[in-house]
């Protein structure tokens, strides 16, 4: 194995990507076919995906990667040891936030260029109110929402509106997600509004790519299987 291949891998592990401008030497490595093919072997054996776009090369751990991917426990650590109910809420909020930004159905993926905290809180509250109302009125609400999800909506609606940063407040929950996304370089503060970074813009087409559908299903269904076994 060429030493450059390992150097490139190590560099990619530092922050998850390299850019043509900032890490030009490493970026050039990848143009070497021998190095590229050695990286492809690592990709297979170490369970990650290399994603090249817009002058950047990303190393994306696959969800099945047990070695260096982040899971719920890492998420839990980074949002401050919250209870499982809060983690469920925070994870759901994070998905909802991504959907607010990239919910486009047609040719355009991006639906917002930035999001304001107040807008997000309003949208999410509205969403939870709707879920709550449906949960009460629909006869077969359980087909659509789990009891725990209805509790999640209640949990959100009961949060306080003040500015304290605890998860007892809407602001606190929002900031936990935002801090995580900021630390992961997915959003940045642009004068009081939150804008997607180049990284998030780069990764969303991959994230929502049809190729990943089986992966997504297995994550969402994996939990059920475990529950069935226990």
């Amino acid at each position: 194995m060429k030493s450059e291949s390992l150097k490139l891998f190590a560099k990619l592990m530092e922050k998850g990507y390299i850019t043509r401008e900032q890490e030009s030497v490493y970026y050039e490595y990848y143009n070497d076919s021998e190095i590229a093919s050695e990286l492809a072997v690592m990709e297979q054996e170490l369970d990650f995906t290399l994603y090249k776009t817009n002058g950047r090369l990303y190393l994306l751990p696959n969800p099945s990667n047990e070695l260096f991917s982040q899971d719920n426990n890492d998420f839990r650590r980074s949002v401050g040891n919250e209870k499982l109910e809060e983690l469920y809420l925070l994870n759901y909020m994070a998905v909802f936030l991504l959907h607010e930004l990239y919910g486009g159905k047609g040719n355009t993926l991006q639906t917002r260029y930035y999001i304001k905290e107040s807008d997000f809180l309003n949208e999410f509250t509205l969403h939870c109110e709707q879920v709550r109302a449906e949960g009460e009125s629909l006869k077969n609400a359980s087909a659509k929402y789990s009891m725990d999800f209805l509790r999640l909506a209640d949990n959100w609606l009961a949060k306080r509106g003040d500015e304290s940063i605890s998860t007892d407040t809407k602001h606190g929950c929002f900031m936990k997600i935002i801090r995580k996304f900021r630390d992961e370089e997915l959003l940045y503060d642009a004068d009081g509004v939150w804008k997607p970074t180049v990284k998030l813009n780069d990764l969303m087409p991959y994230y929502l790519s049809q190729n990943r559908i089986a992966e997504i299903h297995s994550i969402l269904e994996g939990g059920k299987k475990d529950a069935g076994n226990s």
Partner: protein
Amino acid sequence: MISAESKELLQDFEKRMQFVNLIKYWLQRSKPTEIRELLHNDDDKTDNLILMVMVFIMDSTLRYGERCTKKEITAFLRELADVYEYEPEAASMLADYIVTDVLQSDGKIRLFDTFNTDEEIFREKSSLILIEQQSGSYVLTNEAYEFLFRTKEIDNELDFSVNRFKLQEFIKRGNYSKALRESRELVSRVRNLKTRMDDFMLRCRTNISEVSIDEYEEIVTQVKDSFEDENKQLSEIRTLVSAKLQAIVDAEIRNDDNISMTEHDIREILENIDTVISEQSRVFNQKFTLSDLYSFLLDDSFSYLQAGRFDFEQELIQPMQKIQLQDSKNVGKLFTPLYRPIFPHMFGLDFFYRRQNTIRENIRDDEIDIVSAENVETEADVRNKRYVDIINGLFSYAENKSVFFFSDYFNSLSEERLQEQLKEKSLPDVMLKLYGYGEIDMADWRSKEQDIIVPVGEFDLSYCLSELPKELVQMNTILIHRLDEEVTLSNGADDSIRMNNFKIEVKR
């Protein structure tokens, strides 16, 4: 009074507003029920339809010898019936509505408050889109033509040539003031195109998936068509202008004001032409960089764009609404590709630097199960909560008091709460730590940006404060004095803690 600078900025503001007024003219229209039903209550589509009719009228009336009556408009609308899903027979009614109700506003004069920069006041300006001639043919007003041109034609490659052509004609006829205006227009056009190219390249770099091939082709064609032959023509005009300038300089026998004005104009025209020629060639060269960049970026991300996308709502949001709490442990994995890779914790430096008390916790016999990392509430959570409860209790007790004793505080607690706070000697520990601070500067704490790290079970005042409601932390400083007097805290049936009492002073 507007400053000269702003005044210059707002010069001809009226003209800009005129377009807005014109758009409002047909957007703020009457919406009779039968029309709304016919067009399925879809305002967006109705806007499209109205603009299409305007374009049709423009096109018909620009053709030599053609007339545009309601009959032609009806025929055009019949053609569009399938697109907008209305009965072809309804075309006539629609034509009536669009021509009369919308484009002529039921014959009512429409006035819009419009800012006049010279006078610095708002004046009512009227707008009009369509005029019916005596012959029954419809023509658009000049402002409507201009508006429609601006929506497409002006941006087209023709426009540059038209300006160049006008410049040439004005110079031939010796109309230098008008020629000067045209030359300035040319400069602004070429700069505009350059800005658009820069903007396009930036967007390619930021997110290529948002840039369509049509857009790319449009901009490249525009550059190609506008500039390929223009360079030669512009050089010819330049020669012409230079000759005129020479003639004027030669003939400058009388020092006439008029002539020197003309000379000044011509010099500026020359300068402008030079600017256009040089900027033009830069834009033209940039086109090649653009082509390379675009094809490179496309190539890079092509495979992912090709695969298509799954339905975000259907595949992610909805399934997440159905899972049970216990299964939600898995959902963290959903973000795996977006979060950076991290080496396993067994290799992580934090393992070596982690608080060593973890080991002691393992052998301690208490009711908290800390073996499972999956456990919902770890000992750290329990302690954090207890510390927050102590600080919360103290601060709530301090509300509306300027001085109180530690003994007052714990005597005010319910037995149950006191016992909880005494677990692991938490309450005495906290008091000693607070005493260690001596003075707690709350104003300073509030003014600092709070980037709180959740502690792993140790007492952290900043964290506890951040968990309190805002109204509880509004004081300036808190002073803690140790007293000689001793107090006894009874911890359960046979255990008690003796410690000094404290005096707590709250300054607001």
